């Protein structure tokens, strides 16, 4: 059976996906922040900051307004059935983005890098950013993350070996890079962050893998035991840095560490660190002729 897209229906579904991503903080992020709040000293700045963040998340959900005014780079990972026109899906996403901007779910964020002019509707070269994949299922799966500029500015890429960190071309070297990057970020990425780590690849693939980790559930366990160990060790050690929420000091510097890997050239060993702010906004749409659902 040929998979048909009802453009109007998909348009409305994508606007709703954007609204959910922008205004509803995922449940796993909220419970990780609640855990952080309860681990901080009563009455400390760290605890009151986390309280305000949680209060804000609830307010945004109730009022259907953006959690954060920086609605960020809109990153889509879209999986489509065989034979679906990618250009058609792309067009629907771009138009839905313009509609969502009009509705103030998104801030008009996209600036021409040459002239400095804001396009006013979030359209632009490579904006929104869409990655496509194909699968055998008769439905579209669309994941969206909104990644703000503050967290993107403290994201980092290292090349191993790194003399300054005495970091070799192994997992111990990778570990040192992440400690260094999160320490350098301090509160600037809006801590507590979620750390997406991409090991290997070329520079672009490494960062792609790192950013893809943002979609994982904070409470999941990496199926690869080596990567699972690294996630656990980094989570524990990053939280003793004492940077705390917004860099005010405290035990809650990161909410989670998620690791992925890609094959690399023998000559290249990149460590890509995608820092995601506590306002880890992402949502998923499942779309078929029978079903429109979100999670």
């Amino acid at each position, binding site marked *: 059976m040929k998979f048909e897209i009802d453009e109007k229906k998909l348009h409305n579904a994508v606007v709703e996906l954007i609204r959910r991503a922008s205004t509803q903080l995922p449940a796993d992020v909220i419970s990780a922040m609640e855990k952080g709040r309860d681990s901080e000293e009563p009455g400390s700045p760290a605890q009151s900051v986390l309280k305000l963040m949680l209060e804000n998340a609830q307010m945004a959900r109730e009022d259907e307004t953006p959690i954060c*005014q920086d609605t960020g780079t809109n990153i889509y990972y879209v999986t489509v059935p065989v034979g679906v026109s990618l250009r058609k899906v792309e067009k629907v996403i771009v138009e839905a983005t313009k509609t969502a901007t009009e509705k103030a779910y998104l801030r008009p964020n996209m600036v021409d890098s040459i002239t400095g002019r804001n396009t006013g509707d979030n359209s632009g070269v490579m904006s929104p950013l869409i990655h496509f994949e194909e699968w055998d299922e008769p439905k579209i799966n669309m994941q969206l993350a909104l990644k703000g500029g503050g967290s993107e500015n403290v994201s980092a890429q290292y090349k191993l070996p790194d003399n300054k960190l005495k970091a070799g071309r192994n997992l111990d070297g990778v570990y040192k890079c992440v400690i*260094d990057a999160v320490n350098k970020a301090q509160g*600037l990425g809006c801590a507590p962050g979620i750390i997406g780590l991409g090991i290997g690849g070329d520079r672009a693939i490494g960062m792609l893998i790192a950013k893809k980790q943002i979609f994982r559930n904070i409470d999941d366990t990496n199926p690869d035991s080596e990567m699972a160990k690294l996630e656990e060790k980094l989570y524990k050690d990053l939280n003793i840095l*004492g940077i705390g929420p917004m860099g005010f000091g405290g035990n809650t510097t990161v909410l989670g560490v998620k690791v992925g890997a890609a094959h690399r050239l023998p000559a290249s060993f990149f460590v890509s660190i995608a820092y995601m702010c506590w306002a880890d906004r992402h949502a998923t749409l499942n779309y078929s002729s029978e079903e429109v659902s979100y999670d």
Partner: protein
Amino acid sequence: MISLKFPVSEEEVRTLKVGDEVSLNGIMVLGRDNAHAWMYEEKPDEIRNLLKGTVIYHCGPVVKKVDDEWIFVAAGPTTSIREEPYQGDVLKEYDLRAVIGKGGMGDKTLAALKEHGAVYLHAIGGTAALLAKAVVKVHDVLKLEEFGIPEAMWVIEVKDFPTVVTMDSHGQSLHQVIKGKSNIVADKLISG
């Protein structure tokens, strides 16, 4: 919680110390990258009265126009360190008494806060819905056409806008203290 109503005097600002929680009221002016470059390079006169004794807020809001009136929908702070090359000079040039942002600023701004008598007030990054609720009225907007919505200079009136002093007029910076401590831990973890 200390309450501050803009415009404020130098004496008032000098009493504030790192760690004080301060609730803001009155008029504030939004300005980020374009606005700071403009103030630093062109020193426009038309905003002098507006800025005297008041505060500049590093923020690019989400706004909505309803019946010809602007409404603030989301308005949390943006990263302040980008304004480090300009902030100290802008502060003195326009006789500002405070800066609001997130992440703190560097040595040049810290020195200017001390010399001129001003504070850095930290708002909680990402709490845009909550902070937009503290905006009771949008009075004006400057440079909207040229700078675009996130970069324009919005003139707003706020009530009970929550902040924390993280850099004061006595040379103290919470950011320096936290960084100093975390550097020691990081060095230990990295050297194994």
